[in-house]
C-alpha cells in the first residue's frame, strides 16, 4: 500500500471538525487591538527569526487547555492550603508608609499578584551562592484577575526581563529608593512585595488586592511534599548550568529536578524567558493535578500544607476568613474558563536581551482588566 495513502488515512483519523466557536476568531480580525498586535508581530521579524518568534509567542493569547488553569491553579494551591492552618504559620507582610490607605472589598472583582522569587539566601543558597547579597528577585510575576462572578479567571504573566519605570519604594533598610527605570524583577529585590505590587499597580493602573510570594526552595518542597509531579519531556535534558539531567518521555520528577526544569534558560526552547514561563506553567499544572488527589491521604496532606505554609508569604489583608472565601471561589472556576495571557512585549531598543511592553496592546489588556475590576457586577462575555 502506498505510504502517502496510509498517511492520508491517518490524517483523516486525526482530523477534527471546526467548532462553531471558530467564528469568534473572525471577529478578532476586526478588533483594532488584535490588529495592532498582529502588525507588531510581523514587524518584529526584521530582527531575525528568534526575535520574531519571541514576539509572536509573547503576544499570543491562548485558550489552549494545556496552559489553562496553571497559574490560577498555583494561586488556588497556595491560597487553599493555608486556610487549614489559619494564620499561625505563614509570614504576613503589611504596608509601608509610602503606601497610603489601601482598601479591598470582600466581594467584587479581585486581583492577586503572585511572585515567584529566587531568594538565594538561606536554604536557597545552593541554587546560586554568588547571588546571596543580591536579595530576592522576582523570577515569575503573575497577575491573576477574578471577575466579581468568579466564573472565570484571567492570568497575566509579566516577563521578568521587562524594562519598566519602578516607582519610589522603601528598601529593606528603610531608605527610600527614587523612581527609576529597570527590569521589573528588580522591584521585588529592592523593595520587597510592597514595591513589586506598587510597580505593577503604577504600570497597569490595576488595583492589586493581594500579593502572594513563593520562593524557589518552597517550590521544591511543595513538589516533594506532593510526592513529585509527572511531566513529559519530548527530548532528554542535559543542562550543566541548571545541573539537570532527565531522559525523554513521561516521568515523575522530584522537587529538585522540577526546579531545574523550571529554571533552565539555555538548553531548552528558544532561550527566552517567555519559553521558561511556559515550562513553569506546565509544572504548575502538574502540581495542581497532583494536589487534587491529596485530600484522600491525610498524612501527605499535612506535609503538603506545612511545605506550602512555610514557603509563602501573603499580605496582611489576606486573613483566614478571606483566604477561605478566596479558596472557595477559586475552586469553583472551571479550567476552561481560565484564560492565559502574557503581557505583549518587544525587544528593548537599548538592549536586545531585555523587553519592553508593546503599546498600545499592553495598555489595552490592562484597561480591559481595569474596567472589569471597577465594575460591581461582571459581565459574562
Amino acid at each position, binding site marked *: *500500500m*502506498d*505510504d*502517502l495513502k*496510509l*498517511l*492520508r*488515512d*491517518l*490524517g483523516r*483519523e*486525526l*482530523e*477534527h*471538525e*471546526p*467548532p462553531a*466557536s*471558530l467564528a*469568534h*476568531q*473572525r471577529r*478578532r*480580525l*476586526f478588533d483594532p487591538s*488584535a*490588529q495592532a*498586535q*498582529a*502588525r507588531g*508581530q*510581523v514587524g518584529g521579524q526584521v530582527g531575525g527569526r528568534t526575535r520574531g*518568534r519571541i514576539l*509572536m*509567542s509573547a503576544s*499570543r*493569547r*491562548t*485558550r*489552549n*487547555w*494545556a496552559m489553562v488553569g496553571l497559574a490560577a491553579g498555583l494561586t488556588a494551591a497556595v491560597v487553599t492550603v493555608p486556610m487549614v492552618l489559619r494564620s499561625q504559620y505563614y509570614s504576613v507582610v503589611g504596608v509601608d508608609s509610602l503606601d497610603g490607605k489601601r482598601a479591598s472589598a470582600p466581594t467584587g472583582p479581585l486581583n492577586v499578584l503572585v511572585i515567584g522569587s529566587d531568594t538565594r539566601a538561606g536554604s536557597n543558597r545552593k541554587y546560586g551562592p554568588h547571588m546571596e547579597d543580591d536579595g530576592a528577585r522576582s523570577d515569575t510575576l503573575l497577575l491573576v484577575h477574578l471577575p466579581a462572578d468568579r466564573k472565570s479567571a484571567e492570568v497575566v504573566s509579566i516577563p521578568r526581563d521587562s524594562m519598566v519605570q519602578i516607582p519610589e519604594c522603601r528598601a529593606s533598610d528603610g531608605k527610600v529608593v527614587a523612581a527609576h527605570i529597570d527590569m521589573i524583577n528588580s522591584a521585588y529585590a529592592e523593595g520587597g512585595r510592597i514595591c513589586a505590587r506598587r510597580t505593577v499597580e503604577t504600570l497597569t493602573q490595576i488595583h492589586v488586592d493581594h500579593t502572594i510570594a513563593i520562593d524557589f526552595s518552597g517550590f521544591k518542597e511543595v513538589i516533594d511534599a506532593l510526592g513529585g509531579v509527572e511531566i*513529559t519531556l*519530548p*527530548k532528554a535534558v542535559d543542562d550543566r548550568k541548571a545541573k539537570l539531567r532527565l531522559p525523554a518521555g513521561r516521568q515523575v520528577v522530584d522537587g529538585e529536578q522540577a526546579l531545574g526544569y523550571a529554571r533552565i534558560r539555555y538548553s531548552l526552547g528558544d532561550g527566552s524567558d517567555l519559553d521558561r514561563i511556559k515550562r513553569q506553567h506546565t509544572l504548575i499544572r502538574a502540581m495542581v493535578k497532583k494536589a487534587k488527589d491529596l485530600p484522600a491521604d491525610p498524612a501527605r496532606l499535612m506535609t503538603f500544607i506545612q511545605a506550602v505554609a512555610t514557603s509563602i508569604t501573603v499580605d496582611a489583608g489576606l486573613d483566614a476568613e478571606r483566604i477561605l472565601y478566596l479558596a472557595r471561589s477559586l475552586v469553583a472556576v472551571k479550567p476552561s474558563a481560565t484564560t492565559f495571557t502574557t503581557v505583549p512585549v518587544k525587544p528593548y531598543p537599548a538592549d536586545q536581551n531585555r523587553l519592553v511592553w508593546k503599546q498600545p496592546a499592553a495598555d489595552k489588556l490592562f484597561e480591559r482588566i481595569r474596567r472589569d475590576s471597577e465594575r460591581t457586577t461582571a459581565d459574562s462575555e
Partner: protein
Amino acid sequence: MVPAMTAIPADRVRDSDVIGESRTDPEAFAALFDRYSSMLYRYVSRRLGPEVAEDLVGETFLIAFARRDRYDGAYPDARPWLFGIVTKLVSRHRRAESARYRALLRTPAEDVVDSPDDRVAAGVTARSARPMLARALAALPARDRDVLLLIAWGDLSYEEVARALDIPVGTVRSRLNRARKKVRAALGDTNPMHEEE
C-alpha cells in the same frame, strides 16, 4: 460551508482579488476567512489537535491580514500563502506535535499483525500502520515533516509547497523524498513498487 482541501471553483472571485479589495476595504478580508478557516482548522487539528487549532487559525488570519499589502497578486489562490503562515505557527508547537504522534503509539491498534509478511498478506491498513507512521512522523526533522504533511494533509502541489515555505521546488522534492523514504522504512518497506523509484 467551505469544503475542506479541495480545488477552487473557477467561477468565484479570486483570492487575490479579495485580498486586493481588502486593502481599501478591510472587511472584505473576512471572505478569505470564510473560505479557508475550516480547511486550516482541519489541517491544524491533524497536526496539533483541536485544543490549539482554533487560536492558531485565528492567529493565522491576523497575520495574513497584517501582511495583505505584501500579497503577490500574480497568485490567484491564497491557500499556499495561508498554509505558509500556518506552518510557521505550527512550528512553535513542535514538541507538542511530536508528543501527539507519540501518543498514538500508546493507543492500541485494532488489528495486530505479527510480522511484515503477515502485514502484506493482510493488506496494510491505516489502523495497523498507525503506530509505525506515528513513530516515523514524530522522528522526522521539522522541515521534512512540513513538506510531507503539506502534501499529504494539506493537498498542496510541489509548486504550492515551494511557495508556502518560500523554498525552491527542487528542495521540496528532496525533502519529500527523504521524508517518504523514512516513512516507508518505518512501515517495513515491503512494497516492491517503491524499489523502482
